[in-house]
């Protein structure tokens, strides 16, 4: 379970303050998978980083009663000068996972082959995402935070990802950011809409999508 308690978060940009969350409170219960919807630039990625703890809120509290994954997104959590293997070893170590077993799993799942020994700097975006996915799956988290990276790799890799996640979802939950309504229906049973500093939870994913579309039409 992850709880947001009156969380505020804003950024300074050249055009003034950009407010992502304004006194937002929400409870992401365990046993449910949440899809997060929101227009571009609403701060969905920031929300994911807040939930992960990569970033502190300006005020308010984020409570985590679960082992929450690092944010799985395009940003990447790898050090460019280190090889895939070294990065995985580092992450396994700080999360207290068995290093050899984690490396073996990631090496097999990511299918990076000789690139597994190369610096992450030399990877394409897709290869990075594959490494991140495999590393995340290799470590047992209670909640997986995924930021728009479900559409990676070729068909076969995507199918294997989906299969691996379905297995994992028997025990763990996911919180997913995506623009793809199909993906969201496939994985999530609850939804949340982030817009104008407010985070609204919907018990039904259909209703969340509906309210999101209404929001887009209003602003159009």
């Amino acid at each position, binding site marked *: 379970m992850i709880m947001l308690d009156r969380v505020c978060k804003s*950024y300074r940009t050249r055009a003034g303050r950009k407010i992502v969350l304004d006194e937002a409170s929400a409870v992401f219960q365990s046993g449910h998978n949440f899809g997060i919807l929101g227009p571009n630039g609403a701060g969905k990625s920031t929300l994911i*980083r807040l939930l*992960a*703890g*990569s*970033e*502190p809120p300006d005020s308010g509290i984020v409570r985590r009663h679960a082992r*929450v994954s*690092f*944010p799985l997104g395009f*940003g*990447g*959590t*790898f*050090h*460019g000068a280190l090889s895939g293997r070294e990065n995985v070893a580092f*992450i396994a170590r*700080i*999360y207290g996972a068995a290093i050899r077993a984690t490396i073996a799993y990631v090496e097999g799942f990511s299918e990076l082959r000789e690139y597994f020994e190369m610096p992450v700097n030399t990877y394409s975006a897709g290869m990075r995402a594959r490494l991140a996915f495999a590393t995340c799956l290799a470590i047992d988290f209670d909640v997986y935070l995924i930021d728009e990276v479900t559409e990676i790799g070729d068909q076969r890799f995507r199918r294997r990802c989906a299969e691996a996640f379905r297995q994992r979802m028997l025990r763990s939950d996911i919180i997913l950011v995506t623009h793809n309504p199909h993906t969201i229906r496939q994985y999530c049973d609850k939804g949340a809409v982030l817009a104008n500093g407010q985070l609204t939870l919907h018990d039904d994913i259909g209703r969340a999508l509906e309210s999101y579309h209404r929001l887009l039409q209003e602003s159009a």
Partner: protein
Amino acid sequence: MFVHTSSSMTYAIAANGSLLQLPLVGTFDVLMARGLLELLTDTLVAVILLAGFGALGLGALPQDFAGVSVSLLVVWLLGCGFGFLNAVINAFAKSWDKIWAQLTRLLYFCSGIFYVPGMMPEWIRDILAWNPLLHAVDWFRSSFFQEYEPHWLDRSYLVMAAVVTLLAGLGLERGLQRRLYEPL
């Protein structure tokens, strides 16, 4: 030791931006890791150099090994203090690293590396003695060659400078932690 530590810690946050995305890794971790890396590197370099001199038959062993080690450790702590300060300043003033690079050039000349303080006119030495690094260099020197006994050397001044900058650096890092690093 001082220059390497204080300069490279300035860049530690930007260089490890992706690792800071991991919730378990904070700015203190990457800064301290960088500082320790510099300590190990420079120690290793010193050992290799001295061993090389020894192999060539030059008197390479310090006469007071403990004194040399302690002086290096203290000046490393001073470097860490400035490293933390630099990292904080650089987060708010982006060109600070360039200015710091120039300042350290100046410090080379004012530390009694090229010109031994013993050969300086007294009034110049009195001014330069305000520089903690001069004490570091002479502390090291006097432990290496025991016949060198500079009367102006004040070890406690260097230790105090190290403690003060370290406290200030750590304090600022802690206080401004959340503003040191912004993703994207």
